[in-house]
């Protein structure tokens, strides 16, 4: 099934829609961590498959950009491929798999291992932008709680985890406080990645298409993962290095190798893994 894209505007969205998104993005940047409602448009992929990220990317991307798209840290998972092909077709954007070469990185569920730099923009696909949603399903109520900066519900939830399990039992979508004011969901990245958000030199943009919210973290902004004095935030760690490239201190995927409980751990960030494996080759 080929897609005939004649007749569509650059970056798919019409200019008025882009302006609407752009105005929302500017307010999002001005109020770090606040979820700006926007009139989310349909884009030619299902809601919940990155339509928010796609709209944000479409609003910012230009011919001068180099786009990287990852899903689960990998450039070649099917959804990442599909979104990358979409932008190559409608925005005539250059694409790359190298984190260091990208000016815009659209991601689902990971932050690359290669530290981001000034001038880069990372766009997160967000399924549930409201960090309080599973504690309070009503928008009218959570809106009020944000207005009052009343985040007691979340602390109670984390405290109950500790009482029950001895730990904060939140391993992804781990809530953060942005610039000391707004409680924010970092999207379902593993808590392993949370520290990368703090004082990042890159601009971080978040798009939730189905839920119609945009939010942002400017560069060099405090992003604190919630915790208690006696139970501070602890990001996950892995005991073993990557079975392919030998990297340590990176996020790993477990790959089942047989039906007898055998498995191996390999980098979730395929670009990092390729690069590190290449370096190891050279050293050898």
């Amino acid at each position, binding site marked *: 099934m080929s897609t005939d894209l004649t007749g569509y505007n650059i970056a798919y969205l019409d200019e008025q829609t882009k302006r609407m998104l752009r105005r929302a993005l500017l307010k999002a940047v001005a*109020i770090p961590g606040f979820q700006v409602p926007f009139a989310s448009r349909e884009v030619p992929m299902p809601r919940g498959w990155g339509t928010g990220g796609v709209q944000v990317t479409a609003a910012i991307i230009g*011919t001068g950009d180099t786009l990287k798209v990852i899903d689960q840290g990998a450039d070649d998972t099917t959804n990442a491929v599909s979104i990358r092909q979409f932008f190559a077709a409608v925005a005539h954007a250059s694409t790359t798999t190298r984190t260091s070469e990208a000016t815009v990185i659209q991601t689902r569920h990971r932050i690359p291992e290669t530290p981001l730099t000034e001038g880069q923009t990372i766009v997160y696909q967000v399924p549930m932008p409201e960090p309080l949603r599973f504690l309070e399903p009503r928008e009218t109520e959570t809106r009020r709680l944000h207005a009052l900066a009343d985040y007691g519900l979340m602390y109670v939830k984390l405290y109950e985890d500790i009482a029950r399990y001895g730990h904060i039992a939140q391993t992804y979508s781990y809530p953060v406080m942005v610039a000391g004011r707004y409680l924010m969901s970092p999207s379902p990245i593993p808590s392993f990645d949370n520290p990368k958000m703090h004082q990042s030199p890159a601009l971080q943009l978040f798009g939730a298409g189905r839920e119609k919210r945009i939010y942002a973290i400017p560069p060099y902004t405090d992003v604190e993962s919630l915790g208690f004095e006696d139970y501070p935030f602890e990001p996950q760690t892995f005991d073993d290095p990557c079975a392919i490239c030998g990297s340590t201190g990176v996020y790993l995927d477990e790959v089942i190798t047989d039906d007898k409980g055998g498995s191996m751990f390999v980098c979730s960030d395929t670009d990092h893994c390729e690069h590190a494996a290449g370096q190891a080759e050279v050293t050898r």
Partner: protein
Amino acid sequence: MTSTAPALPAPGFDDPARDAQRAFRAVLDALARPATGVPLAGPARPPTALGPGLAALALTLLDTDCTVWLGGALADDAATTTWLDFHTGARRTADPAAAGFLITPPAALPPLEALEQGTDEAPHLSATVILDVRGCAGPDRFTASGPGVNGTAELPAPWATDGFASDWARNAARFPRGVDLLLADAAEVTGLPRSTRLSPLAPGQED
């Protein structure tokens, strides 16, 4: 400039989609990195009163969904109003408190608290001021800090009017409500989001 409105307004961007994208990235970068000037390219033949910088911002941000208030001489400049009407369709208002966007020289900028602040539940519904800073020559300088600033940054502020520093401090104190500023000259834009704190720097003092 003649005082009658031209029959056809001057053209906008040469390549509307691409030029607006580039200008938007400059504005986004400017607000994300407050107190840092970002190069901005405008249309080739903007109305003189706007100049290429302000014209680029208007073309990039405004459309029929927006209300705009023009300050100072801009409000009465037929070339500017005809051009804005034609290219953006933004509704012009005579009441600065009712405007989503304000385009004005510093001298005509109303006190910030008189502008739309948004609410605690919807702080994004606040005004954005596009300040025309061409040809300003005041002595003020500030040290900026806050989200987007790596530590602190020095901000020369020749456009700052008397009382701006305290007006801005009150604006910052209203966070998350508050007004955002875009300082534009002919070829550069600097962002001052409400989250940026400014402290005056004595003339000649190094940060």
